C-alpha cells in the first residue's frame, strides 16, 4: 500500500514572552511526533486546545518550518520541496477564511486559479461542487459575509475539493457549527471517502466525530502523540468502554480540562 504521509520525529517550538520581565522562553508545540498514513486512509488526531493539532496541520501545509524531524507527503519532503507538496494538499480549517465581500463563486474561482485552473475550467465545476456540499446554487453570487457559518464552511469544503487534493487536511472542520450543519459536513466527508481516493488527516477535539469518520485515531497531548490505533484497539489497550475513557487513561486528564493554548505562539 502506498504511504501518503510519513512523519518522523517531528519537532516544533515557538518562542513566547512571559513572566514579569517578559523573558523569552521556548515552548514546545510538537515533541518528536512520528506516524504514517496510508493512501486512502482517514486518520483522526484527537487532542485538546494547545495539544499541537493545528501546529501539525500547519507544518504539513508548508506554513511552518520544523525545528527537527522530517515530513513527507507522497514522497515529497514538506520542507525541502514545498511547491510539490502544495499541489497535492488542501485544507479546511476551523475558520472558513474568505474574502468577505466576494461571493462564494468568486472566492472559489480565485482559489482555483492559484492551482492553475482557468475560469473556463472552473465555470461548470463550481456550481456542481457547491451542490455536492449542499450549498444552494442560487446563493453563489451572494457575498460571503451574508452567509451563515455553516454555509461558509461548506464553501470551504468546496474550495478544498475543487483543486482535487490527494491529501485533505481537516483542522476542526465542524467546530462551532450548529448540529445540522455539523452532521451535513460529516456526512459529506464520509461521502468523499466513498467516492474519492482522498487521504484525510482530521484534527479534532470531537470524540464522536473522530470515532465516526476515522480508520485510526491518534491521541496528541501536549505535543506528544501517545498512540495511533483503530478505535477498538485503543479501547482494548486502555481497557475502556468509550473513546473518552481511553483518552482519560492515556493522558491522565479528563477531556474537558482545557490547558492554556500554546499553539502557534511567537
Amino acid at each position, binding site marked *: 500500500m502506498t504511504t501518503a504521509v510519513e512523519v518522523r520525529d517531528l519537532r516544533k517550538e*515557538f*518562542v513566547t514572552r512571559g513572566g514579569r520581565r517578559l523573558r523569552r522562553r521556548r515552548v514546545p508545540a510538537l515533541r518528536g511526533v512520528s506516524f504514517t498514513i496510508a493512501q486512502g486512509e482517514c486518520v483522526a488526531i484527537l487532542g485538546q486546545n494547545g495539544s499541537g493539532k493545528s501546529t501539525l496541520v*500547519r507544518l504539513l*501545509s*508548508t*506554513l*511552518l*518550518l520544523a525545528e527537527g524531524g522530517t515530513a513527507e507527503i507522497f514522497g515529497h519532503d514538506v520542507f525541502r520541496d514545498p*511547491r510539490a507538496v*502544495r*499541489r497535492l*494538499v488542501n*485544507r479546511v*480549517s476551523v*475558520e472558513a*477564511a*474568505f*474574502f*468577505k*465581500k*466576494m461571493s462564494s463563486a*468568486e472566492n472559489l*474561482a*480565485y*482559489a482555483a*486559479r*492559484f*492551482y*492553475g*485552473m*482557468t475560469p473556463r475550467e472552473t465555470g461548470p465545476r463550481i456550481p456542481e461542487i457547491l451542490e455536492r456540499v449542499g450549498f444552494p446554487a442560487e446563493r453563489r453570487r451572494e*457575498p460571503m459575509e451574508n452567509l451563515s457559518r455553516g454555509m461558509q464552511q461548506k464553501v470551504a469544503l468546496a*474550495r478544498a475539493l475543487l483543486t482535487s487534493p490527494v491529501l485533505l487536511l481537516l483542522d476542526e472542520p465542524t467546530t462551532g457549527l450548529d448540529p445540522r450543519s455539523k452532521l451535513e459536513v460529516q456526512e459529506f466527508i464520509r461521502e468523499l471517502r466513498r467516492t474519492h481516493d482522498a487521504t484525510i488527516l482530521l484534527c479534532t477535539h470531537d470524540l464522536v466525530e473522530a470515532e465516526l469518520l476515522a480508520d485510526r485515531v491518534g491521541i496528541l497531548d501536549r505535543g506528544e502523540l501517545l498512540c495511533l490505533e483503530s478505535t477498538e484497539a485503543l479501547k482494548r489497550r486502555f481497557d475502556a468502554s468509550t473513546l473518552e475513557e481511553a483518552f482519560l487513561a492515556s493522558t491522565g486528564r479528563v477531556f474537558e480540562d482545557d490547558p492554556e493554548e500554546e499553539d*502557534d*505562539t*511567537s
Partner: protein
Amino acid sequence: MRSSAHVVRAELVGLAGVVERNVYLVRRYIWWDLAFFVWTVANALTIVFIAEGVEAAGGQIDLERTITILLIGAVIWAYLGDIFEVLTETVAWERWEGTIEYTFMAPLARSMHLGGMGLFAVAYALVRAVLLFWVVAFFFDVDMPQANYTAALVVLAVASVSFVGIGMMTAVLPLISPEKGTQLGFIAQGILLVVSGVYYPVSVLPEWMQWLATISPATYALEGVRAAILEGDGLAELRDELWPLVVIGVVSVPLGLEVFRRGERHAKRTGKLKRSG
C-alpha cells in the same frame, strides 16, 4: 512529470488570478476608493496652491512653472504611494480577511504572486495618477503646450519596475512584524519623499541626503517626467534619467523577491504566517 509549458501556463493563470482578485476587491470597496481619491485630490490641491500662496505673498516666481512642478510632484508621489500600498496589502489585507494561510499554501510561485500584485498596483496607480493629474490641473490655469505625455508615461513605466521592487521589500514587513510592519513601510516611503525632490530640487538637500537621492528611483522619475512635461523632452533627451531607472529596476526586483523570500522563511520559523497577527 509536468511539462515546463504546463507549469508556465499554471503560473500565468495564477498571476492573472491575483490581478482579477484585486479588481473584484476594488469593485466591492469602491466607496473606500472614491473617498481615498477625494482625500488625495485635496492633498494635492493643498500642495499646488502653495505656488499661488507664494506669489500672493509677494514672492517672485514663474507661477505656471512652479504650479506644474508641484503638480507633477504630487501626482508622482500619489502614484508611488498607491504602488506601495497595494504591495504592502499582499500580506496586510490577506491577514485582515483571514485568507493569508490559503494564499501562502497554494502552489503558486511567490514571484508570480508578487508579480500579479505589482502588475495590478501599476495599473491601479496609473489610472488614479492620470485622473488626479487632470482633476488638479482643472483648478489651475496651466498651459502645457510642449508636454510630451508619451515620454512621461514611458519614464513612469520604467520607474514602476523599481517602485514594484522596493514595494516587494516593504510588503514583507507586515509578515515579519504583524503589529508594526505596515507602519515601518511608511518609513521607507517617507524617506523616498524627503530625498527624491518631490516638491523641491534635490540640490537644496544636505550632501548626504543628495547621495541618497541618487539611489532613489523617484528622483529620476520626477526629473524625467518634469522634463517631458515642461520642456517636451523626448526619450533620447531623457536617457540620463532612463538608464539609472533601468539599472535600479534590474537590481531592485530580484532583491525585493529575495528579501520577501527570507521574510517568509522567518515567518514560517516563528509561526507568524497566520491569519491573526
